[in-house]
C-alpha cells in the first residue's frame, strides 16, 4: 500500500513558534536539525499529544487534525505509533504485556497470536516474560518498536530512537532499525540531530531550524545540493565560504575568492544565475581537495582546476584521517579565522606525502566539488 501524508502545523509557545509545512510518502521521513528546532514538538502534534494552534494533518486521506474544520482526533483514535526517546516501556509489565498493550480491543486469542507474531518478527520470542529492566538497550528498542507496530499504525513516529544507546551499539542498531523499518513497510517519521543517522535512515530528509523547515528533499539531493547556507550550517558542512560572482551561466559559475577566480559547476537541476558582483556562498568538502605531489611533473592548468598554493597552519589527527588547516599564500585576511580551507587526507596519504615535514603545498579542487549555495 502506498502512503501519503501532509503536515501543516502552527504552534506558539512562550519564546518559540513552530510553523512548518511538509509532505512525505512511503518510507522514512527524517526530521533533522539542531536541538530545540521543534522536531519533537512536531511529533507530539502528529500523535495528538499536543494541540496545534492552527493547521491540518492528513495521513492516508484520514484527517487527524484540522483547525479550520474543528477536527482534532484524540491520540487514542489516531492509530499513530510512537517510539519515545526513552522508549517509555511499562516497567511493571513483561515484554509480552508491553507489546500487547495496544491490542486490548481484540479478542484474547487474536491478541496473543499478534503478540507472538510481533515478538518473532523482532527476534524477541525468548524474552516474552522478561521485564524491561532485564533487557539490554537494543532489546528495549525492539520492544518499543514492537509495541508501536503491533497496533498496525498508519504512521510510526520515532523520537531520537538511538540516542539512549552508547556509540558502538548505536551504529549496529542504526542498521538494524533501518532493516526493521523497511521490512515492516510502515510510513515513519524519525527525529534526529545526527546527520549520519539521518542519512542512513531516511528516504526523505526535512531540515528544521528554529521552528521552520528550511529544506525538504530526498536524502541524496540534500547531501549534494543543500538549498541554502542555513541548511549547509545545520548539516555541519565544513568550508562554507563567501565570494563574489564573476560570471554565471546555466552550467558554470565563476567566483572571486581570496584573490583567485574559482570555477564551479552550476546546479544541473536548478540553475542558479546570480548577477555579477553579487555575494555568493559555496562550500567545499574537505575530502575533495587534492594535494599535488611534488615528485611528479609540474602541475598543468589543463589537468588541475582551481589551482592554489598554501601553508599548513594547523592539523588534527582523527585516527583514520588527518584534518589540515590550510592558509592561502595570497594576501588578505584568511576566510575562516586563521585559515582558509580545511582539508582531510587519509593517514596513508599523510605519511606518503610526508606532510609532517613538508608544510607548503599546491592543491586543486575540481569544479564539480565546489557547491554553490543559493541565497
Amino acid at each position: 500500500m502506498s502512503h501519503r501524508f501532509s503536515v501543516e502545523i502552527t504552534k506558539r509557545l512562550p519564546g518559540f513558534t513552530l510553523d512548518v509545512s511538509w509532505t512525505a510518502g512511503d518510507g522514512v521521513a527524517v526530521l533533522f536539525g539542531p536541538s530545540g528546532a521543534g522536531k519533537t514538538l512536531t511529533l507530539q502534534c502528529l500523535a495528538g499529544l499536543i494541540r496545534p494552534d492552527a493547521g491540518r494533518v492528513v495521513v492516508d486521506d484520514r484527517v487527524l487534525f484540522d483547525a479550520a474544520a474543528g477536527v482534532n482526533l484524540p491520540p487514542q483514535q489516531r492509530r499513530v505509533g510512537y517510539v519515545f526517546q526513552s522508549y517509555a516501556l511499562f516497567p511493571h509489565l513483561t515484554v509480552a504485556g508491553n507489546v500487547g498493550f495496544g491490542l486490548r480491543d481484540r479478542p484474547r486469542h487474536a491478541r496473543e497470536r499478534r503478540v507472538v507474531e510481533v515478538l518473532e518478527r523482532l527476534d524477541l520470542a525468548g524474552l516474552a516474560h522478561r521485564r524491561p529492566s532485564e533487557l539490554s538497550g537494543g532489546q528495549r528498542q525492539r520492544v518499543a518498536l514492537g509495541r508501536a507496530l503491533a497496533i498496525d499504525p498508519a504512521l510510526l513516529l520515532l523520537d531520537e530512537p538511538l540516542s539512549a544507546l552508547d556509540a558502538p551499539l548505536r551504529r549496529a542498531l542504526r542498521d538494524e532499525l533501518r532493516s526493521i523499518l523497511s521490512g515492516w513497510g510502515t510510513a515513519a517519521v524519525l527525529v534526529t540531530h545526527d546527520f549520519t543517522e539521518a542519512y542512513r535512515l531516511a528516504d526523505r530528509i526535512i531540515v528544521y531550524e528554529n521552528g521552520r523547515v528550511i529544506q525538504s528533499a530526498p536524502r541524496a539531493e540534500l547531501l549534494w545540493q543543500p538549498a541554502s547556507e542555513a541548511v549547509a550550517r545545520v548539516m555541519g558542512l565544513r568550508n562554507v565560504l563567501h565570494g563574489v560572482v564573476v560570471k554565471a551561466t546555466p552550467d558554470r559559475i565563476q567566483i572571486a575568492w581570496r584573490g583567485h577566480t574559482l570555477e564551479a559547476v552550476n546546479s544541473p537541476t536548478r540553475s542558479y544565475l546570480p548577477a555579477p558582483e553579487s555575494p555568493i556562498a559555496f562550500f567545499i568538502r574537505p575530502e575533495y581537495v587534492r594535494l599535488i605531489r611534488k615528485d611528479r611533473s609540474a602541475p598543468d592548468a589543463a589537468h588541475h582546476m582551481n589551482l592554489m598554493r598554501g601553508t599548513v597552519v594547523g592539523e588534527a589527527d582523527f585516527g583514520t584521517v588527518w584534518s589540515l588547516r590550510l592558509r592561502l599564500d595570497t594576501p588578505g585576511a584568511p576566510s575562516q579565522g586563521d585559515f582558509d580551507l580545511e582539508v582531510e587526507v587519509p593517514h596513508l596519504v599523510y605519511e606518503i606525502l610526508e606532510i609532517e615535514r613538508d608544510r607548503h603545498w599546491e592543491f586543486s579542487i575540481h569544479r564539480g566539488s565546489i557547491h554553490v549555495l543559493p541565497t
Partner: protein
Amino acid sequence: MSAEALSALGLSIRVAVAATLLNALIGIPLAYLLARRAFRGRALVDLVVTLPLVLPPTVTGYYLIVLLGRRGWLGAPVYALSGWSVAFTWYAAVIAATVMALPLLVRTARAAIESVDRELEKAAFTLGRSEWRTVLEVTLPLARNGIIAGLVLAFARALGEFGATLMLAGNIPGKTTTVPLAIYTAVQTGEMGEAVALVLALTALSCLVLILAGRLGARAA
C-alpha cells in the same frame, strides 16, 4: 484488660480502618488531580487539604464543629431536617481521623504519582487507552509503593488521633472513647495499669502495621 479498654481498642481499630478507607476513596483521586491536572482553585484545594498537618488538632476540631456541629453550617440543616447530628457519634471520630490523616496520604501519594514518567501515560494514550484506564493500568500500579506508604501513614495517624476527635466526637466511654482518649482518661484518674496496657496494645498494633506495610512494599518492588 478491662471491658472499657477492650471497647476502646475495638473502636480505635474500627475508626482507623474506616478513616483509612475514606482516605483511599477521597485521597487517591485528589492526589491524582493535584499531581496531573491544572484546574481553577487547585492551590486552594492543596492548602485546605494540607492545613490539618500544620494547625493544632484542636483548631482543626474547632473548624469541624463549626462545619458539622449541631449549629454548624452543614450540621444545622441536617439537624433541622432529621433531628440527628454527627457530633458526639463514632462517625464524628471517623471524620476527625479522616481529615487529620488526609494530608499525609495526599502528599505521599501525590509525590508518588508525580514521579511516574508522564511519557508512560502518553505512550498508553497512543496505544488507545483512555485517561481513566491509563490511571488504573499505568499510573496507580507504578505509584503503588508510595500510595501504600501513604495509606500506612494515614492509618497510623487515624489510630493516634486525639485533639480533633475530642473536639468533634467527645470522650463518651463505649461510644467515642478511642484508645488515645482512654489512655488520657486513665492517666488522669490514676489507673496506671489500664494506661500501660493500652499504651502497649497501641504500640504493638503500630509495629504490626509497619511490618505488614514493609512486606507489602517489598513485594511490590
